[in-house]
C-alpha cells in the first residue's frame, strides 16, 4: 500500500456483526493520526451523556503516519468514554499493536455496539472475523494470549489485545493487556471491552507501506539519522539500562513520592534501596525486550523463582516491572521486598486491572481501615495491613469476585468508594482518576487536575517540578509550561511516537520524517497549532461531558505533606487552575 494510503478506518459493529471500511483522508490530512484522529472519531461516534458501559460507547484505536516507518513510532492510541471518570478515556500501548494495525492496512479502528455472546475479533489484514469467545470467557488475560496464539495465524507479526476477568466484571479501571506484558492501562478500556462482551482483538499484519520511488533515498537518509539519535546518543539511554524504574531511588531521596497513601513523601532508606530500579535489575531482571520497531528495549521482565509446594516443586514466573507498578504495589502499599511487588503486579496483570488505580485504591482502603472508617465487615474479613502481600492478593481477587457491596464499590474506583464510605481527604484521585506516584510540587498536581486524561503523561508536571527545584518561579510560568507540553504531546501521540522518544523527535526531525514518506507541507508552526487544536478538541469533549474546573476535588492530604518545594497551598493551586481556565478560554467554567 502507498504511504499516503494511511487513512482507512475499519468500522466494526459488534451488535450487527458487520464491518465497513471508509477512507477518511479528511481526518488524516488535517489531524495526522493517533490522538488527533481519535478525538475527531470519538466526537463523531460518542453521543453526549451516554453510559460508558453501554453499547453506544465506541472504542477507537488509532496509529499514525510514522507508525511502522520510523524507529520508536511504536504506540497505539485507544480512545473511549472512560467508565472510571465518566469522561474522556485515552490510553496508549506499545507491544506489537501499532505495527499490526498499520500493516493490516488501517489508520484507525472504531468498535461499536455490543455482542450478545462473548466474541473475539480476528483481523487478518482485510479479513475480519467475529469468533465465539464463550470458551475463553472467565479466563485470565495471560492464558487468553496463550490460547489465541495457537488458534490464530500471524505468529510474530500480530497483536493480541485482551481483557482479564476484571474487564468482564466491569471493574471500572480494568485494563486491556497486549502481548502479555504491555497494557492499555489507564481509565478502563478493559471494562468497556467487557461491556461489549469483547474478550480480545487479534490483528495480524499482511501488508507493507510503499515509499514513493523518488523518496526512497531521502527516506533511508532520514531514517538513518533518526535511528542514530535513538541508539547513539543519550536521548533514550536511561530507558534501556535500568528502564523506567531507574528514577525511583532518586525520586524517593528528594521526598517526591507518595509513600503509604502519602502518609509521607519518602520511604525509609532501606525500603527505597530494596525497591529501587538498581536492586530490581541486580536481583530479579531476566530479560529486556522491546516494542515492535523500537531498538531501545525498555520493557524489563523479572524472573521470580518460588517454591510453591514442598518437595522441590518450584515455579518460575516472568513478570514485567516499571516505575509506576513498583510504586503502586510497593511504595503505596508499604511492601518491604521487591519480590512482593512482583507478586502483586503478577496478580493484577492476570486479573487485568490498572496497577496504579489498584495500588491507590488499596492504599486508601488500608488507611480507612486503620482509621475505622471501614471495618472487617466491609472487607469480608480481611485485615488490610501495610506490606501484607497475602491480604492484598486476596483483596484484589475480591474486587473482581465482588462478594459484597463494599467490593462492588471498590470496583468503581477510589473517588466513588470514598464518596460512599468517607475518607475523601486521603482518597488520592484527581478528575476521578487515581493519582500517579509523584508528590514533587505544584506542577505534578496541576498536571493531574487539568490534564485531559488526568495522567502524569499528559504534561509531565513531575518533570517540571524537578527542573524548577532551587529556582524562583511564578505559577504563570508553571501553567504555561504544562499547557505547552500537553499541546506538544498531542503531536507526538498523533504521529504516534512513544513519549520516551520525545527528545529524538524534534519538530525539525518530524517534518523531515513526514516529507521523506511523501507527507508534505508541515511546518513547525503548523504542528504547534495542531497540537493546540487537538488539545482543545479533547477539552471540548471533556466540558461537554460535564468536566468542571471550578468543582475539581483536591484531596486535603496533598497539602499536609511537604513536597521538595515545601508545603503546597490550596489557594495557590486554585489560582493556577483559574489561570489555566483563562488561557484555554474557559473563564465561564470557573464561575
Amino acid at each position, binding site marked *: 500500500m502507498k504511504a499516503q494510503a494511511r487513512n482507512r478506518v475499519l468500522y466494526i459493529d459488534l451488535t450487527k456483526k458487520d464491518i465497513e471500511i471508509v477512507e477518511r483522508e479528511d481526518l488524516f490530512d488535517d489531524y495526522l493520526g493517533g490522538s488527533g484522529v481519535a478525538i475527531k472519531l470519538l466526537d463523531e461516534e460518542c453521543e453526549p451523556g451516554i453510559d460508558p458501559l453501554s453499547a453506544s460507547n465506541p472504542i477507537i484505536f488509532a496509529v499514525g503516519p510514522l507508525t511502522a516507518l520510523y524507529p520508536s513510532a511504536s504506540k497505539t492510541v485507544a480512545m473511549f468514554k472512560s467508565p472510571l471518570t465518566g469522561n474522556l478515556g485515552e490510553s496508549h500501548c506499545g507491544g506489537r499493536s501499532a505495527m499490526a494495525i498499520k500493516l493490516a492496512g488501517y489508520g484507525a479502528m472504531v468498535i461499536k455496539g455490543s455482542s450478545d455472546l462473548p466474541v473475539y475479533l480476528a483481523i487478518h489484514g482485510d479479513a475480519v472475523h467475529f469468533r465465539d469467545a464463550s470458551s475463553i470467557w472467565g479466563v485470565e488475560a495471560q492464558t487468553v494470549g496463550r490460547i489465541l496464539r495457537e488458534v490464530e495465524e500471524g505468529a510474530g*507479526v500480530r497483536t493480541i489485545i485482551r481483557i482479564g476477568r476484571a474487564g468482564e466484571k466491569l471493574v471500572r479501571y480494568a485494563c486491556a493487556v497486549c502481548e502479555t506484558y504491555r497494557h492499555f492501562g489507564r481509565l478502563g478500556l478493559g471494562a468497556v471491552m467487557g461491556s461489549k462482551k469483547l474478550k480480545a482483538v487479534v490483528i495480524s499484519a499482511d501488508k507493507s507501506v510503499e515509499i514513493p520511488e523518488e523518496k526512497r533515498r531521502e527516506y533511508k537518509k532520514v531514517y538513518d539519522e533518526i535511528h542514530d539519535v535513538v541508539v547513539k546518543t543519550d536521548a533514550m539511554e536511561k530507558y534501556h539500562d535500568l528502564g523506567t524504574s531507574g528514577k525511583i531511588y532518586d525520586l524517593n531521596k528528594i521526598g517526591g513520592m507518595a509513600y503509604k497513601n502519602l502518609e509521607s513523601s519518602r520511604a525509609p532508606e532501606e525500603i527505597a534501596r530494596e525497591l529501587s530500579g538498581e536492586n530490581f535489575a541486580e536481583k530479579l531482571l531476566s530479560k529486556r525486550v522491546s516494542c515492535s520497531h523500537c*531498538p531501545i*528495549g525498555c520493557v524489563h521482565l523479572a524472573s521470580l523463582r518460588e517454591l510453591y509446594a514442598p518437595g522441590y516443586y518450584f515455579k518460575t514466573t516472568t513478570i514485567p516491572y516499571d516505575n509506576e507498578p513498583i510504586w503502586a504495589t510497593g511504595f503505596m502499599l508499604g511492601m518491604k521486598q521487591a519480590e512482593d511487588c512482583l507478586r502483586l503486579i503478577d496478580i493484577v496483570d492476570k486479573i487485568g486491572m490498572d496497577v496504579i488505580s489498584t495500588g491507590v485504591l488499596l492504599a486508601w482502603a488500608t488507611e480507612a481501615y486503620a482509621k475505622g472508617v471501614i471495618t472487617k465487615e466491609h472487607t469480608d474479613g480481611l485485615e488490610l495491613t501495610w506490606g501484607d502481600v497475602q491480604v492484598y492478593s486476596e483483596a484484589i481477587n475480591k474486587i473482581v469476585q465482588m462478594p459484597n457491596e463494599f467490593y462492588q464499590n471498590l470496583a468503581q474506583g477510589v473517588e466513588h468508594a470514598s464518596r460512599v464510605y468517607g475518607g475523601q481527604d486521603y482518597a488520592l484521585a484527581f478528575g476521578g482518576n487515581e493519582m500517579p506516584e509523584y508528590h514533587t510540587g505544584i506542577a505534578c498536581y496541576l498536571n493531574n487536575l487539568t490534564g485531559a486524561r488526568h495522567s502524569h503523561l499528559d504534561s509531565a508536571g513531575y518533570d517540571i517540578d524537578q527542573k524548577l527545584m532551587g529556582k524562583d518561579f511564578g505559577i504563570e510560568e508553571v501553567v504555561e509550561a504544562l499547557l505547552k507540553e500537553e499541546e506538544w504531546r498531542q503531536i507526538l501521540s498523533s504521529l504516534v511516537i512513544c513519549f520516551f522518544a520525545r527528545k529524538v523527535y524534534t519538530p525539525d526531525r518530524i517534518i523531515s520524517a513526514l516529507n521523506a514518506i511523501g507527507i508534505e507541507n508541515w511546518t513547525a508552526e503548523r504542528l504547534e497549532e495542531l497540537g493546540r487544536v487537538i488539545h482543545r478538541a479533547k477539552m471540548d469533549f471533556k466540558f461537554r461531558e460535564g468536566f468542571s474546573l471550578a468543582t475539581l476535588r483536591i484531596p486535603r492530604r496533598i497539602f499536609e505533606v511537604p513536597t521538595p518545594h515545601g508545603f503546597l497551598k490550596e489557594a495557590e493551586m486554585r489560582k493556577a487552575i483559574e489561570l489555566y481556565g483563562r488561557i484555554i478560554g474557559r473563564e465561564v467554567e470557573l464561575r
Partner: protein
Amino acid sequence: MVKKLAALDVDKCIGCMECMFACSRRVGRGGFEKSAIRVRSAGGIERGFVIIVCRACENPPCARVCPTGALRERKGGGVILADDTCIGCGFCAQSCILGAIFWDYEKDKPILCKYCGECEEYCVHNAIGIVELTVEEPGVRK
C-alpha cells in the same frame, strides 16, 4: 571470502524487529512483506525469541529441489536465485525445514536472504551479524 548472515546470539535479541524492517526498506517498503529474515517469540516472549534466516547450508535442499535451476548453490555456500527462471512452484520453501524461505505474494516467488548485511547494521544488540563461511559459528537457529 564468502559471507553470510548468522544469528550470533539469539539471547541478545530483544524482539525489536529492526532487522525485518531493514530488509524490506532495501526495496523501499515499510514493513516486512519483502523481508528475508523473521523474528518471533518462541511461544511467548518469556521464552525468548527465534531468529529465522537462511543459514547458507552445505548442499542446500532448496537448490536440489528447484525444477528449473533458478535456485543455485552459491560457490562457497548459500544459494542464489535467478528471478527470471523461477516459476514460483514453491518447492524450495517446502524443502527448507528452517522456514527460512519466505514468499513474495506480489511476484509469486520466494524471498531469500542475499547475505548483504543490511539488517545487521540496525541490530544494535548484536544478535545477528555477517560471518565468513569458513568460520564455525554458534547455533544459527535456536
